[in-house]
């Protein structure tokens, strides 16, 4: 069992297998949420999820946000970055500082 897992659609994450990650093919929100919970219980430290999965599993990801492990990190899938992850960084900034000082748009 590797410490790093990746969840996403088959076409996007298959390549990660070559790098030695644990690869799970799952795009449906409910099942992906359960999968994330299971991986977290099993002690996987870093879970990469593709951005569509990240958007679909908001609830379970929010649950693990305030814990040290696992780190659930969105990565872009085959269709390129959708901006979900940048929006998450932006939300962090707004939450912590009260105003967006990084993006200035």
């Amino acid at each position, binding site marked *: 069992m590797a410490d790093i897992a990746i969840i996403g659609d088959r076409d996007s994450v298959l*390549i990660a297998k*070559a790098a030695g990650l644990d690869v799970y093919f799952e795009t449906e929100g409910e099942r992906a949420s359960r999968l994330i919970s299971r991986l977290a219980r099993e002690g996987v430290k*870093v879970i990469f999820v593709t951005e569509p999965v990240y958007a679909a599993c908001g609830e379970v990801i929010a649950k693990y946000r305030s814990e040290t492990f696992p780190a659930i*990190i969105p990565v872009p899938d085959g269709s390129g970055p959708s901006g979900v992850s940048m929006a998450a960084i932006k939300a962090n900034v707004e939450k*912590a500082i009260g105003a967006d000082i990084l993006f200035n748009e």
Partner: protein
Amino acid sequence: MTLSYKPTRMEMTALKKRLVTAKRGHKLMKDKRDEMVRRFIAYVRRNKELRERAERMIGEAMEAFVLARASMSAAEIEEALCYPASGAGVAVGVDHVLSIEVPKFSFVRSGDVGYPYGFMTTGAELDEAVRRFTEVMPILIELAEVEKTCNRLADEIEKTRRRVNALEYVMIPQLEEAIRRISMKLEENERGNLTRLMKTKDMLNAKEQSG
């Protein structure tokens, strides 16, 4: 809203002590918040930079992979990637940023860096995709660490800010108000007492003169 307390000296001393503690707590908490914000800004800058880089590199890897998929059959790709040559892991530690636990990851690669397949059925496009993806792994792991730290810090800053505000705008004014009320009440009692004494004295004097 005001707190109701018994107007006694003992109560007032206790309240004054609480006020001192509250003020000290407020100052410490405020300092903590300021320092957390300072560090957060540094982390979040790094986060943004890493994310941009990772997104670009993954994009390139995905592009190469799409090409590879186009030139090979799905079964061939599956077969080629089925058994990884190198294992990827993370060495996990826990770091403390102002007593907040944050993860510390460092990327560990086991096995040799190479292609996990023979060159019989695979094309150069797949090599390219695999190479690019392996390259992006250390960056992704660093990104995981920094992004998690940012999440934790943002949560914690929010909590601390709430506490600072609660102390500043609720707790401290309430205590000050209660102390003011008690001291007014005590002074009032004092004055009442004095007047009563003077009145009694007058009455006694009047009685003496008439008697």
